[in-house]
């Protein structure tokens, strides 16, 4: 049993719902108790979808358990078919449905529906949402495109001369983080390169579209967490190579263009030149000087976390101090990425563990999920959201992709805006002791009446202090390092947004030297030692 307060991922059948809801003409019959229908509101409320997800739940109750729940399932399948007339159906069980062992697969097969019925085995007590989405997409692809697979050991037919290269876009689902806008951004990019999109799936694909996936020359996998297994199968069955770069950030988008051009057998140079992002110039402009070396903590699904780490370091000049993921299936990739940043990856789905790590590292910016947004808010650290799990705010009305050059511009804005802007930070530093400008004063635009409560006594530090002392344990004789009142006073003169860092640096400086009491002298010695 695992004690859980908040979860990063839902159960695997919610992953299956994300695939089904993204598609057209597909229906999902789910053997599930009353109450599991809550999942509908994820789509209708969070994503503001105007249609109910195409899901029929058997919603069995205790009184049904003594009777024939299997018949209930069969009736649900038939009624769903009659009412919705889907072109294909997926069937499976939720966590409770799995326990009553009615065998939805067998029952649906015996039901004799005149459409393809695809059984799903999603072990709820082992796996989670993204795995469920990946498995569902894989099963749909295998069942519907399988009949068209090439005979073993045969090569793909050569594309006729003059025919546009074609690719599939794989992975976007309902309830994904900016999938809607990424599809548009990447489709535009590929079309400008003269590449035709054969099928985008699962996003708005019909079963008939899935059946013709094999007509593409290669596959672009936007979200490996979801489309990885399906793309591997397509590679084996249709000889379609996979574009493995996910185009998040300027560098990755350039790599993506190069990789796509190679597979499409075209010259990438004109496209690399023609496609522009403002990010490189914005990062070089002097106001961004203040971004240099900002300590950033990154957590999310593997794809977004790894991509964010690269953008943070190479394109914004941040220092990545923490990198982690809840996607255990991709732990190896994230560990490798973390190693490139000289840090150790945090692989966990325990939100309290993430919170402890953020508190310990005291970053100046957190890039994470909605969970990290809450953590950061509590700890008083600026934050931008880069990954699912999603919140209604992650479905903005405006076009706001993460991918491609337009996506890179979005990243620049969303990551930099939570931070103090350059000149602003400079002025705050200059006037930090000004009576109207100290950090306890409310922002002037709120007027004097609405004086903000004094900044909650640096909650970051409260949590972090013992952890830091522990980290320095080998050198410290015994007991934690303490602060002399005057030093504490002096520390308060440092602007609040760098105070946490100053405290941390000073404590680690003192710890390494076995200094038990931090004085004003220690504070400035540490400042000189760390150099910023």
């Amino acid at each position, binding site marked *: 049993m695992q004690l859980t307060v908040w979860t990063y991922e839902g*159960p695997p059948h919610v992953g299956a719902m994300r695939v089904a809801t993204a598609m057209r003409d597909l229906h999902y019959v789910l053997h599930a108790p009353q109450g599991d229908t*809550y999942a509908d*509101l994820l789509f209708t409320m969070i994503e503001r979808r105007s249609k109910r997800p195409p899901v029929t739940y058997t919603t069995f109750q205790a009184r049904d358990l003594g009777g024939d729940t299997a018949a209930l399932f069969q009736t649900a399948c038939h009624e769903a078919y009659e009412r919705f007339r889907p072109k294909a159906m997926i069937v499976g069980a939720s966590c409770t449905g799995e326990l009553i062992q009615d065998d939805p697969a067998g029952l649906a097969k015996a039901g004799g529906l005149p459409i393809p019925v695809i059984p799903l085995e999603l072990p709820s007590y082992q796996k989670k949402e993204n795995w469920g989405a990946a498995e569902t997409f894989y099963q749909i692809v295998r069942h519907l495109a399988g009949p068209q697979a090439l005979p073993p050991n045969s090569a793909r037919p050569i594309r006729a001369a003059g025919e546009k290269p074609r690719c599939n876009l794989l992975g976007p689902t309902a309830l994904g983080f900016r999938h809607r806008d990424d599809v548009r951004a990447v489709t535009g990019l590929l079309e400008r390169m003269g590449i035709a999109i054969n099928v985008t799936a699962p996003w708005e694909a019909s079963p008939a579209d899935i059946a013709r996936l094999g007509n593409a020359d290669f596959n672009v996998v936007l979200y490996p967490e979801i489309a990885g297994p399906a793309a591997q199968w397509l590679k084996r069955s249709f000889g379609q190579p996979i574009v493995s770069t996910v185009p998040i950030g300027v560098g990755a988008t350039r790599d993506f263009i190069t990789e796509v051009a190679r597979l499409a057998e075209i010259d990438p140079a004109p496209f690399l030149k023609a496609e522009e992002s403002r990010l490189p110039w914005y990062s070089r402009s002097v106001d961004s000087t203040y971004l240099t070396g900002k300590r950033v903590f990154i957590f999310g699904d593997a794809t977004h976390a790894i991509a964010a780490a690269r953008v943070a370091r190479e394109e914004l000049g941040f220092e990545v101090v923490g990198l982690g993921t809840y996607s255990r299936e991709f732990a190896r990739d994230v560990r490798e990425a973390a190693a490139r940043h000289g840090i150790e990856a945090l692989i966990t789905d325990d939100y309290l563990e993430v919170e402890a790590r953020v508190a310990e590292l005291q970053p100046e910016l957190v890039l994470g999920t909605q969970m990290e947004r809450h953590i950061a808010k509590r700890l008083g650290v600026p934050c931008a959201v880069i990954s699912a799990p999603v919140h209604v705010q992650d479905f903005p009305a405006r076009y706001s992709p993460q991918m491609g050059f337009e996506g890179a511009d979005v990243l620049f804005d969303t990551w930099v805006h939570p931070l103090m802007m350059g000149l602003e930070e400079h002025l705050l530093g200059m006037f930090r002791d000004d009576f109207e400008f100290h950090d306890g004063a409310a922002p002037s635009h709120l007027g004097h009446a609405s004086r903000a409560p004094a900044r909650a006594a640096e909650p970051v530090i409260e949590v972090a202090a013992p952890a830091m002392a522990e980290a320095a344990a080998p050198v410290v004789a015994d007991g934690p390092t303490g602060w002399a009142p005057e030093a504490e006073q002096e520390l308060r003169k440092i602007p609040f947004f760098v105070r946490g860092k100053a405290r941390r640096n000073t404590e680690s400086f003192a710890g390494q030297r076995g200094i038990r009491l931090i004085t004003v002298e220690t504070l400035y010695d540490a400042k000189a030692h760390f150099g910023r």
Partner: protein
Amino acid sequence: MTTSPVILPGPPASSCSNPPILRERGQREVFCGLTGIMWLHRKIQDAFFLIVGSRTCAHLMQSAAGVMIFAEPRFATAIIEERDLAGLADANEELDRVVMRLLERRPDIRLLFLVGSCPSEVIKLDLSRAAKRLSERVAPAVRVLNYSGSGIETTFTQGEDACLAALVPSLAAAPADAPESLLVVGVLADAVEDQFRRIFAEIGIRHVDFLPARKAGSMPSIGPGTRYLLAQPFLGETARLIESRGGQRIAAPFPLGAEGAAGWIHAAGATFGIAPATIDAAITAPLERARKAVSRYRDMLAGRRIFFFPDSQLEVPIARFLHRELGMELVEVGTPYFHKEHLAADLALLPAGTAFSEGQDVDRQLDRCRKAAPDIVVCGLGLANPLEAEGLTTKWAIELVFTPIQGFEQAGDLAELFARPLNRRARLEV
């Protein structure tokens, strides 16, 4: 007019005390009883709710109400994993370990509910034995109780019924010679509770308790002198258990709207032998305020046709309020469970021929709803946006549970909840 301002108009000439009910069994688009934890944990301030369930349960709690504003809320899920399914003995050991770890982390907790879920019920994990076992380990600092909020047994607000029903046997017995006392049963917002407390004090009911109390240590005692008044219409099992300990129910309409609140207070007063004039004197001012506040929305709502999808079991008394005090027409009043006895006073005030439905077959009900084309639809969050997109105006039902709507001072707020969607639609020009 010489009548006292608080004399209520009589029931309709032909009321629906024993109406025909359309009973449906199909797909139900409702929450399970776990959802009740959302408000129960805010009410009982030193209680912790530990769901013993699956990742789905945890995901529901996190998604259903967007309650992540609480850093470390007083609820959590012990997620059953593959190896817990292999052997129940180990599952019990695991549960004990999780509970001990939790209590170590939260020394402020005095009352722990082990909340059963669909999977824990299906694998027959005996949470009542677990609660007993753990109680022995952690008493007297913490009491451990259990109830089921599983979807196979409970619908949405029935979770509160199950929770309160678990509390009842643990309540102290009132002394044999204790005077008659009033027990108000069902979670009310603290502010609403305080308003009722003041009114009861003013009319002269001296011993008034509320179940649940705000702290585990101050739960009321009960006995044959207990006269209980339901504040919520979904407390069938709790009522049964209170009666098994000698409590007697005070029949009353539910305290929704001016009429409901007045009827509710009058019923309590009558039980304690308080003269109607004394009660009228105490409630004249709030009743007038309530009527005035409600009347502000009458123009907007009168004659409008309303359709209820089943959700909280509050549908019948709310329909009574909307029909009687705002002149709305009831197209269909759907409710998950129809407790005729507890709803008798409300039903008597509804016109004959009101269409009731119990249970659900959601697609068929949607067909009926579209066909009837009501002016406003009360439904769950899964249905609201799709219906809006079809051009229907909706009021999402969960707000009726999360907003203080009971009592005189909230009657206007309750009316406003129904006027707002219509108001909004009237304002928007795009």
